[in-house]
């Protein structure tokens, strides 16, 4: 009897990349449906140009277009490369679908469709295919597309009145009215269609953690960093209650949670070892807060994570081993960095608003 030989092992564990991509796909679809519904329910200003249904339909349209364009770009590229036969297997379709959906979810509902199409093409082609496709890219193609959209079509997709922007104004003394309930279920003007209910995102987060799509260490560290930094800024600038509200808004609105679920721990563009994962998450978290507080942009997650992606190859190529000593060192340095940064930002902000300190704190009283 002759045998065919392979290399061991003869068995693998239950984890499969395909399964992870599929789980991500399921999560995204659930989220997409929820965001369409939410857009339909969000109250609009009296003079709004579009009705709720219009916006909901627009959101749906954007996602459909995002997916179709993303898949088409990949298929055409494969045809031009003569590798179209790889699309015969079903699993090849999942990643393009995920990319398309994510891009659409990350853009505001005011985005013109042509802007979406161009952004998806740029993201998928320049962000993914040029590097060799899934598994080889350095920058998360989704973020490349979103960044491109913001830089090129920023004017057409202006967003006003998101909670984070209101917060920025609040520190200058204007009044803010937000209700905790609306914030939790996502009933407010959002920077992107996908920035929906934080409760739903949290459920998705748990699901993806259980199915191991998300690396818990990255996401939790990232959330924790944002939490601590905003707590620090709030501590320096507001009374206790103001501090809590400031932190809360930073945590549950904007793309904070969306980033934690879908963007920071996207495996291909994040580092591969324990220490670097933590360092990466801390850097991204700090950058998010820096951009939110100091720049004119409404949201910092996209830029911050792209910057983190930029550092990833560097981190991957400098780390030598994962030792307990290294882990402790990373954690200690991270904590020190967080404290210093939150202090620094806190005081920078304070010099601008010192006279408004008391009033601001009073204004926030309305939320809880």
């Amino acid at each position, binding site marked *: *009897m*002759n*045998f*065919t*030989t*392979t*290399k*061991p*092992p*003869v*068995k*693998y*564990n239950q*984890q*499969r*990349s*395909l*399964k*992870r991509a599929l789980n991500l796909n399921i999560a995204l679809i659930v989220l997409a449906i929820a965001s369409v519904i939410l857009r339909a329910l969000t109250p609009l200003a009296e003079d709004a140009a579009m009705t709720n249904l219009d916006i909901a339909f627009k959101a749906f349209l954007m996602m459909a277009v995002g997916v179709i364009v993303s898949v088409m770009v990949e298929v055409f590229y494969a045809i031009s490369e003569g590798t179209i036969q790889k699309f015969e297997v079903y699993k090849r379709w999942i990643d393009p679908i995920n990319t398309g959906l994510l891009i659409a979810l990350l853009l505001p509902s005011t985005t013109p469709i042509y802007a979406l199409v161009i952004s998806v093409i740029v993201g998928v082609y320049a962000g993914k295919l040029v590097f060799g*496709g*899934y*598994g*080889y890219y350095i920058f998360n193609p989704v973020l490349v597309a979103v960044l491109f959209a913001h830089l090129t079509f920023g004017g057409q997709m202006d967003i006003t009145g998101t909670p984070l922007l209101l917060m920025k104004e609040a520190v200058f003394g204007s009044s803010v009215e937000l209700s905790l309930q609306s914030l939790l279920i996502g009933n407010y003007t959002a920077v992107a269609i996908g920035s929906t209910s934080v409760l739903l995102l949290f459920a998705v987060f748990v699901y993806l953690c259980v199915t191991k799509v998300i*690396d818990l260490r990255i996401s939790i560290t990232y959330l924790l960093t944002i939490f601590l930094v905003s707590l620090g800024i709030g501590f320096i600038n507001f009374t206790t209650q103001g501090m809590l509200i400031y932190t809360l808004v930073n945590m549950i609105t904007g793309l904070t949670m969306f980033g934690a679920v879908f963007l920071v721990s996207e*495996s*291909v*563009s*994040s*580092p*591969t*070892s*324990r220490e670097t*994962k933590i360092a990466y998450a801390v850097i991204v978290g700090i950058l998010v807060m820096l951009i939110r507080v100091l720049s004119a942009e409404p949201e910092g997650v996209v830029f911050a994570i792209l910057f983190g992606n930029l550092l990833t190859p560097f981190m*991957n*190529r400098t*780390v*030598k*081993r*994962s*030792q307990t000593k290294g882990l402790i060192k990373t954690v200690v340095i991270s904590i020190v960095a967080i404290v210093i940064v939150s202090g620094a930002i806190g005081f920078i902000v304070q010099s601008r608003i010192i006279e408004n300190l008391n009033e601001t704190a009073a204004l926030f009283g309305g939320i809880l």
Partner: protein
Amino acid sequence: MITENKTYLDPRKVYLPITDEDARVASLQVAEEDEVKVGQIIAKKYRGKEAIPVIATVSGKVLGVEQRIDRFGKVIDHVIIENDRKNTLEAFDTFDGEVPTQIIRNQLLRLGIHQVSLDGLYTDIRFDQPIEHLMVDAIYTNEPFISLDYDCIVKEAEEITDGILLLAKACKAKTVTLLVDKFMNQEALDEIGKAISDTIIELEVINSKKMNGVDYKIARKLINRRPSINLLDDGIMFTTVFVARSAYQVIRQGLPLTTRKVALTGDAFVTNALYDVRIGTLFEYLVEDLGGYTDEEALSCHIGNFLSGNQVESDAFSIAAHIDSIDVSRYRDVEEDVCIKCGDCNDICPTDILPQNIMDAELRSVNERIVELHTDDCIECGLCTYVCPSKINVLEWVRRAKRRVG
């Protein structure tokens, strides 16, 4: 799943390899047509200056020497003995009570306990380096979610314990650790617990469903630093309860090691069984006894630990003392996906090195980086490949990297 216990103790002929991976030179001690007894020395193999006896496992007539493949697929000399089925035993001394270290060592070597457990981290039974710690594995695993044989432990807890203590005496170990399974049945646990109370043997309970290189971690805890690929170099002897039981038989009963347990698993067999088999039996005989293969096409045969064992091209090998399990399954071609950089392989590695990064460095052919990543420390446990969701053979990449930097 193992469903049966079987025996195959009287093959027509036995084929005994007279050299091995470490001892490549041997001198024959018998001639053709000689009558031999069970336990008689038929050859001596040399590792350096040390002569290791190879003993007959049946009594009968020596038919000659033949070149055959062994479990690693290497062609080596085998002595063939025709079994006269009389089982005439050469007389060996037995010892009671306290036995001096040197006598235990001599007896173990003389009666065939030398290289009995080979897979994974198990070490040979040899005493040329100082040993401080003895680890004995009571977990019988060949696949995850697992085939376990605890009957032997229940029945022979006393003997096993005595064997462990004899081994400890032989290597002058300061600590003795017995690794047992968390999912072991209560009866076995009770028996073993009763037997080892009042001895220096410490229990270490392991979750055998988690594949995470726990034996390596225990060894690491014992010596407080990272052990090397050969635990003997670190003063640790790591072996199985099977060896302990055999040591008991050698010293207390004067019985040489002539049989062993082999698990035959895999979907190419009608049933899977745990065999008590005469060492030197051809694998073909066992297959025949088990009812042959269900399928004649595209099978693969894996010997030893499912993570780090090896595969052979033909079933013409004979059961050597160090074969504890054989899996014959339908050949599955696993399709590799791209690395999604999830880092699972980096997390699982018991030696704390970063296989994904090593793979990356190997792909880019940067020798310096490979050295810097401590590629040398890899103990080839195969866990990185096991956990990879893309089913990439990460260990092969690490091996390639190792070879590149020499």
